[in-house]
Every structure is written in C-alpha cells, then in structure tokens.
C-alpha cells in the first residue's frame, strides 16, 4: 500500500510550507529532495560539458547523462536507449515529430487525426504543418463525458491518413483514452500513432513496446523531475526516417562550408549543449518513482479521486465536467454562478493550489460551451484530509459571493 503521509516527507516544499495543499499536479509536480540533490550534486561535483572532454568530470557527466537514456528506455519499455531523444519538453517533442517526421512526407490532401480533447501542444503543431502542406487536420469527436468513438475512428481512416496524435489522458478532465485499441486500429492501416503521455507517465505503467506506440512523448517536470527536459520515444524505423531540424555542435559527423552530415539518432536531434542537469535530475526522478508500484499508485489516486468527487457533490451548484469513470487523477468542475477564477482565488488565499481556466484546451472548452473550469489534479503525496480542507473552504464560497 502506498503511504502518502511518508511520501510527503520526501518533498521539501511541504516541509517548508506545511499549509500548502497542492492540487495542481497536472500543471507540474513538486520535486522530491533526491531530484534537487541530484542537480546540486551535478553542479557541485561533476559539472562539465559532455561527449567531448577527456578529463574525469567530463567523462562522469557524459556517463551519467547517457545512463539516464537507458533508465528512461527501461521506465517506458522502449527496446533500447537509442530510441530515446532528449528534448526540452512534451511541446518540443511533438513539434519535432510534426516538423521532421510528418513534414518530410505530408502532401496536399493528406490527413492528420487528433481528438477534440487535445492540449494545444498536441494540436497547433499538427495544424501548422497541415496548413503548410495543404493537408487536413481531422478531429475525432468526443461525447460530453469525453469518450472518443472507435467505430467513427475506424471509418475515418484512409490511405491519406498519415498520423494519429492522441493524448493518453486528458489534462483537462482526466479522461483516459483507449490508446491500445486506437493503435491496433491504426496499425491495421499502417498509420503511425503518437501518444501524448504528459499526463499518464507519472501514474501508469507504460510499456511502449507492448502498446506498439510509434511515438510517445512526455515532460520531466510532470514526473517529479526538473523543468526544461522532455522525452521523445520513437520506433527506430521512424527515427531513421527523420532529419534533424535544429543544427549545431554535438550532432554532426562532418562539416564543411559546402555541406554537413549528421550523426545518427538520437544524437542528431540534440544539437548544442543540452539541459545536462535536467537529464541528471530526470534520472533521479525516475529512480525515485520506480520505488513505488504503479498499480498501487493508480489504485490510490483512484480512491482519492472518488473520495474528492463524493465530497464535492456536497457543494451547492457543483457539477463535474467529464466522466466519473475512465478517468485518472484529475477532476474538472464548475460551480453554478461562480467563475472558476474566483474559486481558484478563494482557495489560493487559503494555500490551496488548484487551476482555473481553459487548461490549454480552448477548442474543448468551446465544445463544452464553458469559458473554463476549475481543476483539481492529484499526485501521490496528496491526502484525503487535504480534500476535506478544500471542501471546507468551498462550502463558504457561496456565502462569500452571494452573502450568507
């Protein structure tokens, strides 16, 4: 069984701010001491640029940096460290696939399919490349509970479909997509699938090989790791089909003023000095998370979500956005007559951090005909008692806003 009370102790922010109730984990997670320490250790003990130095600390930095690649591969079930490209985040990973993988093959009349619940990061890059190439961005519709329809998907695929990009878990309302089924359907027509794992990787047991995902992307900062580091996993055949889009040092084979040739993947996608400390910190985050059983994490977060949901029903005017079922540790809701930002401000004034707004999913909000929602998102250090405290404050909101 997961022991959130003990887990909390690993996160110095809760020691320094004992009153902080952090329910904005879908935006970014807090960092355990071991991650902070790994960064400090790097800068204190073996800070050096990588891949080219022959002295001790450079060798150590290179070794640690490259070792994290294997760790990441292992963590998500990738066949090899060679499938792992370091990027600056989910957004950068998706843009890389859009520009390099898709950009090279997309033709006028081709299609790219996304869902109606995608984060802007998994929407605009496809929209822009489609626009540039005269291709069409198609949107898998969802129902009001957030379900996509596999039958509709099946019939909408054709020879012109060049990629499906789908989030594993909706960052807005936590809906879990049936990515295994989507991948199966897509692969029957040889269509590659990109899975946006930003919201799933910290809680789910990911096995990209077993899922047969073509691309899987996520950010370190939502996984207890540092900002400025992300991952692109891609199948070897896809990486080999991709040309670099950013050029500079540490990715070249031969350079002359006339022409240049590049190293093979993943190296060729990591031009210049990368976020070395970020990589080291991500390694520590993965080590940290790996001590826990993902099944237990999932079970605990399900319990926490259900508890919060049952208590939220007590609030006058509450309604859930999305679905009670098929959802991960995120709850999106509205309270009749109270704007999400006012809810978030009132909770914030009591040291309870939730998020209000469109959650970078404006088209989804338009579909739901909502200007925005309030969102609580949980992580392994959250407690039922924190939920209780939030409910207590929310019960006063009506009084504050409309008079007792």
């Amino acid at each position, binding site marked *: 069984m997961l022991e959130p009370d003990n887990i909390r102790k690993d996160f110095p922010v809760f020691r320094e701010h004992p009153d902080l109730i952090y329910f904005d984990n879908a935006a970014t997670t807090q960092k355990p001491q071991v991650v902070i320490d790994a960064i400090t250790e790097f800068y204190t003990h073996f800070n050096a640029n990588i891949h080219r130095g022959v002295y001790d600390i450079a060798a150590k930095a290179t070794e640690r940096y490259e070792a994290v690649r294997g760790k990441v591969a292992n963590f998500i079930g990738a066949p090899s460290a060679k499938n792992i490209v370091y990027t600056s985040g989910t957004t950068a990973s998706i843009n890389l696939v859009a520009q390099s993988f898709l950009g090279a093959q997309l033709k006028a009349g081709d299609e790219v399919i996304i869902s109606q619940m995608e984060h802007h990061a998994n929407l605009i890059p496809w929209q822009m490349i489609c626009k540039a190439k005269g291709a069409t961005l198609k949107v898998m519709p969802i129902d009001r509970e957030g379900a996509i329809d596999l039958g509709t998907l099946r019939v909408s695929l054709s020879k012109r479909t060049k990629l499906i990009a789908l989030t594993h878990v909706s960052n807005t309302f936590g809906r879990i997509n049936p990515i295994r089924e989507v991948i199966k359907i897509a692969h029957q027509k040889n269509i590659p699938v990109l899975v946006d794992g930003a919201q799933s990787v910290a809680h789910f047991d990911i096995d990209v090989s077993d899922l047969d995902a073509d691309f899987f992307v996520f950010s370190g900062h939502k996984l207890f790791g540092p900002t400025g580091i992300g991952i692109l996993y891609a199948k070897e055949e896809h990486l080999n089909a991709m040309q670099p889009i950013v050029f500079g040092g540490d990715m070249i084979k031969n350079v002359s003023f006339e022409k240049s040739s590049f190293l093979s993947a993943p190296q060729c996608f990591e031009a210049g000095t990368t976020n070395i400390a970020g990589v080291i910190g991500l390694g520590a985050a993965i080590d940290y998370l790996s001590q826990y059983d993902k099944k237990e994490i999932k079970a605990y977060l399900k319990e926490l979500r259900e508890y919060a949901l049952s208590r939220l029903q007590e609030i006058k005017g509450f309604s859930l956005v999305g679905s009670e079922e098929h959802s991960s540790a995120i709850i999106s809701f509205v309270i009749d007559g109270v704007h999400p930002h*006012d809810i978030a401000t009132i909770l914030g004034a009591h040291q309870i951090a939730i998020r209000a707004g469109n959650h970078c999913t404006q088209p989804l909000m338009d579909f739901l005909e909502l200007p*925005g929602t309030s969102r609580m998102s949980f992580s392994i250090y959250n407690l039922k008692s924190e939920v209780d405290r939030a409910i207590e404050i929310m019960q006063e909101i009506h009084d504050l806003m409309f008079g007792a």
Partner: protein
Amino acid sequence: MTDQLKALYQSVILHHNKEPVGYEKRPEAGMIIEAYNPICGDRFNLYLNIVEGQLEDIHFHGFGCAISKASTSILIKHLKGKSIEEVKQLVAAYFKTVNGEAEDAPEDFAAFAAAKAFPGRMKCATLSWDELNEYLKSVS
C-alpha cells in the same frame, strides 16, 4: 476567510458582479472593443458610441470572473456620458488607484486595489480598462 480575500470580494465588487451596469449586447454600436484574456478565457465586448468627442453610450457583454465583470461594470458606470478627455483622466486615475497609488479618484475604484495582493488576478481588474486604453491611444 482571510482579510485579503474579504478585501478583494467586498460588497462593491460582488454587487457589480451580480448586477452589472449596462450589461447588454449592442451589436449596432459605433465601435466594439474586445477585451479578451487568453490565459483564463474571460472575454467581454465593449459597445461604444462616441459622438462629437463624447462617449454618449457604452454597454458591455460577455463572461468573466467577479473581478473582471465588476471592473467592467464600474467602467461603464463612470465613463458613460463623459468627454474623451474626461474618459482619459478617469482611465489614468483607475490605473493609479489599482496600483495602490493614492489618487483623487471615485470611491469605488479603490475596491480593485485589493487585487494587488493577488498577482494572478491583477489582469482581471484591468482587462477592459487596458483594452479601452489601447483604443484611446490608437485614435489620438
């Protein structure tokens, strides 16, 4: 509830949130200004009729939080019927008051100074005012 919260959600704001002044669509207005905050999705239209240097008529419509809605309502209340010169002075006075700089300004402006304690909400207090200000700059 904390004192800062009470200061923010004081009766002036809550009142204007519930019963906003000039809250109706006027698509036929001479000038429509959109005040939109992409970060939170709040969006108001300001409907202006300026006749011979006078802000003869002004209404608004849209959605937003209590702060942004009330601050727009206050804007309508104070600017309607004023000359452009007076409008400019009032806009400047509003910004000064919100920034906590003492100023000889209408009393109900002061309510929004409380937003300063909530940096994430400052924009709500100035959203419509900012857009109106941009418009005034662009025409003079």
